[in-house]
């Protein structure tokens, strides 16, 4: 039963106030894209056992979408941030490096 801090309204939101939205920072592929790239956009997800960037909507709350950097194995949350970004902000990246020094590539992949 997670509890995540919504960066917009500042509230600690119980998981039952939230709606999950899958992997964050996906790059939308449009009508120009090749089949492989489009398939990847629709269906391929990183599904890591470890640090994951994922979208959450504060559905029973302020209604805003935010992103959480969370470890799927230990449920440690490195931080939450506004969804209007194509990659995690520097302070989140730094926090992850500090907590998981062995992890390669703290970016959204």
């Amino acid at each position, binding site marked *: 039963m997670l509890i995540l801090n919504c960066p917009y309204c500042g509230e600690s939101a119980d998981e039952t106030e939230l709606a999950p939205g899958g992997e964050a920072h996906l790059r939308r592929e449009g009508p120009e894209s090749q089949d492989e790239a489009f398939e990847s956009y629709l269906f391929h997800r990183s599904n890591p056992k470890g640090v994951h960037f994922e979208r959450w*909507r504060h559905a029973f709350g302020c209604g805003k979408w935010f992103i959480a950097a969370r470890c799927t194995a*230990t449920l440690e949350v490195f931080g939450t941030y506004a969804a209007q970004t194509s990659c995690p902000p520097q302070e989140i990246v730094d926090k992850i490096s500090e907590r998981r020094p062995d992890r390669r590539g703290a970016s959204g992949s």
Partner: protein
Amino acid sequence: MSTRLKSGGRRIDRSRPVTFSFDGARLRGYRGDTLASALLANDRMLVGRSFKYHRPRGIVASGSEEPNALVGLEEGDLFEPNQRATTTELYDGLTARSQNRWPSLSMDFGAVTSRLSRVLPAGFYYKTFLRPRSFWKHVYEPLIRRSAGLGYAPNPEARDPDRYEHFYLHVDVLIVGGGIAGIQSALAAGRAGARVLLIEQSAHWGGRSPADHSGGKQSVNNIPVDKYVDECLAELGTMPHVQCRTRTMGAGVYDHGYVLAYERVGDHLPGEGALRHRLWKIRTGRIITATGAIERPIAFPGNDLPGVMLASAARDYLIDFGVSMGKHPLVLANNDSAYETAFLLQDQGVDVAAIVDARTGDAGGVAQEAVERGLRVIRGGGVSSVKGRRRVEGVTICDQRGAGTALEEISCDAIAMSGGWSPAVHLWSHSGGKLTWDARQFCFRPDVDNSARGADGAPYVIAAGAASGEMTLAAAVKDGHAAGLRAAAELGYNGAAQSEPVATRVEEAAIEPVWIMPSQAPVTLREKAFLDFQNDVKVSDVELAAREGFESVEHAKRYTTLGMATDQGKLSNINGIAILSDALGRPIPQTGTTTFRPPYTPISFGSIAGSQTGPRFLPIRRTPIQDWHEEQGAYFEPVGHWRRPYCYPRGDESHSDAVAREILQTRNHVGLLDASTLGKIVVKGPDAGRLLDMLYTGRMSTLKPGRCRYGLMCSENGFLMDDGVVARLDEETFLCHTTTGGADHIHAHMEDWLQTEWWDWKVYTANLTEQFAQIAVVGPKSREVLERLGGMNLGRDALPFMGWCEGMLAGISARIFRISFSGELSYEIAVAADQGIELWEKFLAAGQDFGISPYGTEALHVMRAEKGFIMIGDETDGTVIPQDLGLDWAIAKGKDDYIGKRAQMRSHMIDPDRWKLVGLETVDGSVLPEGAYAVASGKTSIGQRATQGRVTSSYHSPTLGRGIAMGLVLRGPERMGDELEFPGTDGQVYKARLVSPVFYNPEGTKQDA
């Protein structure tokens, strides 16, 4: 025989006697008794029969770890099976019945299985009941059903009259366990200033310490232990930020500091209809599990006979309830703690037969004291058999290190056994805390460096006291204090410096492990040494599992069912793990434990549901006109959480007659529909048109103010997910209608794209579904009815088809959309929800001479099908694209991009062999079954009949006097006139022709009137 002594019993109030009944016998006890202590006071040691072999079972423990004393409590609507007598507080008039026996507890027919135990070892059901196969349904299964199970399920007609609720609480430090360590933690954390909740599952504070130390040999800060506990509680009571609750069990520890606690508010109070249980949903910064330790039985032959009890339980019954387990008890142990039972019994005038101590090492202070008290101590001894059929009558003593050769017989009527102590590590383990094997105390204890971790990655569970392996009074007190300080400090509460409490220390001689008694017991004795009393699992069963290759502790558990009974293995787990390890020749820590899962002990379903039962089970949604529909006796159908009228039967009209009447009335004159449930979303801003052009397949940005356009929404995977009419309110503002089921979801979809993809576009949305009541007035007379209300010009030119206008209709501010889902002249009127019923009644009055009447969702569905209009959820199923439904016209050709466009370019989406929308007309006019498939010749690669189409909607059309249907068929539009076969589930084969799906008024002249 067990008996109530003349005095003593800290918890009972001898001035308040109560009467209760057990198996029909009227017995007496006192307020403060548990059912178990009162039964023992009445010499009722035999309380049930074991699950598999129906062996006689007696009370073994004094708390929630009890495996045997399970009873059916109360009767009728209040009946509840499998209740533990040890945790049932006695009240006047309590009624209890023993379980798993017939015809009676003492003469149980099922006991015959006990004689067959040789052929019914662990896992026997995997090897028997296999042949002949035909016997399974009519012989084996009915037989097993009759003999399996423990308690009886309540009558299916019974309705629980009691109430349940939840409570959400946020605290800093949650302490589970009101024993000496838990109380100490609460004091330390409370003094430091943290918000504390201390919970205790029983009705009293202090845990084991007051009973264990009633002999007065030990103290804390020089105060007797029970007085010390009282003083601590008094101080806790003065702290406003500290809360202490009894009868509240920590049920489970979950992620991010979430804990469930189960409060038995009313179980000890007779009566019904009151609040019975409260489930606490707690978020906490730190959890201190001060859950104590559970004593282990000893696996000796005959250890399951009534009269064999845990030594700590014997102490509890004596000190807390003034009950002696027997007149002539024997104490059997491998550690010092059990000696106190002998001393306390002796102090109360009970004649202790002997203390059999399996250890051979150096005797400690307690052995010395025993000698001084004149008690007989047999060192290095064991029990190789127990005399008695339904009750202990005596034991045979042997050498613990031998194979069971009889050394002497001792007569006794009860055995108080102690095989050591296991910290209660359940809550510690729930969320990932690891365990380590303590090789000195022979138990698993929390690995304090490997606690469960919270959202911030820091450990958030702290074990304290006996639960952490700190078993002595001094160690528990010190550990509890440290845990409280640590929990508070980690959360930033430091408070003033606190002095550490000091408890007396007593030297203890080491425990020696005794996993099998005697240690060289042959298999004939191992078959009589029980590990799990409820499920009848013996030492020999676990050894059998090891021999048959079930080496993992998880496999051995499931193969033998050890630890799978209602006590969740609290008394059997560790002993079983030790036997398994021994059988496999590996150390106990290598075997490990099975996974601990919540709840710690069973909790009621009522508490899980809380108050959300009956009328509060679902958030049923009501339109502004709902009351009126109900008063008319409408028949409702669920649409999401709404309940929409399906039809309005009159008199004893059948539903199909009502639907036909409603359709004909509407098509011939005028009808009324409550369309309030449809989604209404306002989309406004300079980029509103741009957004809608991306979300819809059509081009909404070219829609003119005052006009409406039908739109389709697809997912990124290309499939049709919603449809509805969009109205342009002004240059920057659109109003989007969605299906009833789609309102919240489409609004979320819009916000998703605006917030996470096109966040620099200037668009605001607002979900106004609930702001408006929306009424459809439909039929050739609809315009006249509206004009009778007055206030607005609604002539054909003033409001053409697919236009909208606003004004005051009969004095009510209204927006009118001229749109049609039925193919008739039709208007939808939106007014503020508060005025919905007023407008509805005005329409009814104005249209009376036209016979105006309401129609429901079924008439709605039939009429749209008569016009070939698709419905989301009927013609679509998540795999259908607009091009399948002949809706290419709704896709704007010049658009570069929209959600779903790229997906619709994939080869499978443009395959000419896709099934496409057609109308279907049966040859004989009957109604095609919905969902029926049109068969083709041949078979598929997996041997099923090949198909070439399916029915998506099918109705009887009263307008046309025949059945009509829509379906998706292979190359359908190219095969008009073809006849196909649709097998029904009734053996019939329906023949239908492919026709245009627009059955009624294909020129569209009626809706354009």
